[in-house]
């Protein structure tokens, strides 16, 4: 077994341990001085000449996650026993898994890291030709169906009235989803239960007669809606209607969040809050069409998980994805990212315009991979189908 050559200056245990901590930190484990102290303390309780024990102690203290837990042994070996591995190669893998592991929200570190590591924004040029080619089998199918739609319901939907109608439907849906009550209780002016603590306290001044009654009630905990809209080539015919739908979701509260995606992800919540519906929609759809090209649902959900999910998605969130499910990313990526999103305890609804068609089956590989992670999968090709969602969403 080859042991690491330490610099002459790093003589003591403390320095080597500090070096190891720095190594772990480089590889994306969120460690601070407290962990270093903890490990040094732990050395009093184990036999530090036994490699196995030291490894276990480090492992137990420094990891806090299944991901880091399973990758720890490699990191340990690479630092203490150079098994002929290149440091850079090792630094690469964990960084990647750190990116997957977006659950940690570290404002300082993440923002710089994702901008330098995250090559998605630069990638499409080199990548798109290849991805388009690989998806060409399905691409042709979409194109023919698209023209079909344009002839039937597209023009009708483009009138201002129907856009307004889409907004109204969205508003109804948002209300249906949002009406959720917490199981907690808070002091309130009106409420079903007495706040005994306050009441008794106040009764003392009346000689023990509970004269003033204070109450408790369950506070409203609005369910937060996060909408992700696919505006790639195959979805452009629906883009405007769905944008007004998003606008309907978003206008009446400050909590809802909306995003567009094609090959990259854009947050549009603020733009959508523009009071002029037509102006906002035109601006956005122009912006969306400018990108065109393929859809990268998997990597977009990944970006969302990394950059926005920690702030916007929790147990009281409903994530609505509006997409046809044709993805140029491998379906495993989408499944994996949806699973991660689901870990945040949110509910995921996928609205697929294709589902409204006769004989549609979710055979697109991406869609099939996504299905097990969805709470609800529904059609969204007409306003009626959107309106029909209401009872389902109420139940979620």
């Amino acid at each position, binding site marked *: 077994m080859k042991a690491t050559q330490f610099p002459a200056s790093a003589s003591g245990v403390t320095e080597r341990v500090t070096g190891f901590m720095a190594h772990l930190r480089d590889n994306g484990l969120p460690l601070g001085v407290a962990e270093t102290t903890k490990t040094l303390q732990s050395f009093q309780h184990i036999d530090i000449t036994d490699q196995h*024990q030291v490894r276990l102690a480090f492992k*137990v203290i420094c990891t806090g996650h299944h991901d880091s837990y399973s990758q720890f042994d490699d990191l340990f070996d690479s630092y203490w026993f150079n098994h002929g591995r290149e440091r850079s190669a090792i630094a690469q893998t964990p960084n990647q898994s750190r990116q997957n592991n977006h659950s940690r929200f570290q404002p300082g570190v993440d923002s710089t890291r994702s901008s330098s590591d995250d090559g998605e924004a630069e990638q499409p040029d080199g990548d798109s030709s290849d991805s388009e080619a690989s998806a060409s089998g399905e691409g042709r199918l979409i194109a023919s169906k698209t023209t079909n739609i344009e002839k039937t319901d597209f023009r009708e939907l483009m009138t201002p009235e129907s856009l307004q109608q889409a907004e109204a439907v969205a508003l109804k849906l948002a209300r249906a989803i949002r009406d959720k009550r917490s*199981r907690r209780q808070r002091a309130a002016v009106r409420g079903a239960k007495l706040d005994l603590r306050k009441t008794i306290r106040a009764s*003392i001044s009346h000689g023990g007669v509970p004269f003033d009654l204070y109450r408790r009630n369950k506070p409203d905990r609005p369910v937060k809606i996060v909408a992700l809209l696919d505006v790639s080539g195959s979805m452009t015919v629906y883009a405007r209607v769905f944008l007004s739908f998003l606008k309907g979701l978003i206008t009446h509260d400050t909590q809802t969040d909306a995003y567009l995606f094609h090959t990259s992800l854009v947050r549009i919540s603020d733009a959508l809050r523009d009071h002029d519906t037509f102006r906002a929609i035109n601006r956005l759809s122009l912006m969306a069409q400018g990108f065109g090209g393929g859809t990268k649902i998997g990597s977009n959900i990944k970006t969302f998980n990394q950059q926005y999910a920690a702030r916007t998605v929790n147990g009281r969130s409903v994530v609505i994805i509006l997409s046809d499910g044709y993805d140029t990313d491998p379906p495993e990526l989408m499944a994996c990212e949806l699973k991660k999103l689901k870990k945040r305890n949110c509910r995921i609804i996928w609205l697929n315009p294709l589902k409204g068609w006769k004989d549609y089956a979710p055979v697109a590989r991406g869609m099939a991979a996504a299905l097990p992670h969805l709470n609800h999968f529904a059609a969204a090709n007409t306003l009626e189908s959107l309106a029909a969602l209401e009872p389902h969403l109420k139940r979620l």
Partner: protein
Amino acid sequence: MSWKSLQATLADNGYIASDELAMAVHLSVSLQRPLLLEGAAGVGKTEVAKKLAALNGTKLIRLQCYEGLDASTTIYEWNYQKQLLSVQAGKGDADTERLEQRIFSDQYLLKRPLLEAITQDKPPVLLIDEIDRADEEFEAYLLEILSDFQVSIPEIGTITATSYPLVVLTSNGSRDLSDALRRRCLYTYVEYPDAKTELAILQRHLPDIDASLAEQIVSFVQLLRKEELEKKPGVAEMLDWTAAIAGLGIAKLSDNPVELQATLVCLLKTQADHYNIPREITERLVGQAVP
């Protein structure tokens, strides 16, 4: 006590711990840090806490988490009925100051699990079970207690711990826990036991079982876990199944396929899993498991 002897003692008490788990428990005891155990349901996370309490001869204080858990059910609550009576009874007493002091004293305080755990004479084991079911607000309550072992009550003041409890948190990973909580804990991911460990567990719990049957059972369950299942059978399910097989007097798994299929109710807990493991698959697995 070194970690190896801890592992051995646990084994004597009927819990076979992996090296990682034994080291985690050992360090958690000696560094007085909470221990966070993650893993699938049925791998024996809760059992660790129970065994530790039995081992140290201390009280096990258990807090089962659910959504909406709040301070009054986990930390403390005033005994309102008693306070009310006391206020009524002390009506003649004009000194409100003294009255207030009386009814907000220790005897009117109802201790809930977390407060109870830090006010024991002998350090207990505090089991916070399925922490991922509680909401984020509850995690925030927990942080104060886990880092300082103290509770602030406005009417009384701060209650500091008389003894540091050994805290074990378990999580099924149904939701991500906050980093702040993770960082305060020592962490171990508990895996399904390997065949050797599982056999040891089986023999520890049901010593009367025939050795070759035990081996068949363990390898069948291990194979079954590799199938596509919604809910993989845990150790507890395996033990139930073994008891069922022993109770039915089955000597060899391949003897009676119909009866065997019927006993799978002990292992498969969802309708989809029953559908996914029809008799043919059971027979194939038995074929692989029985030498």
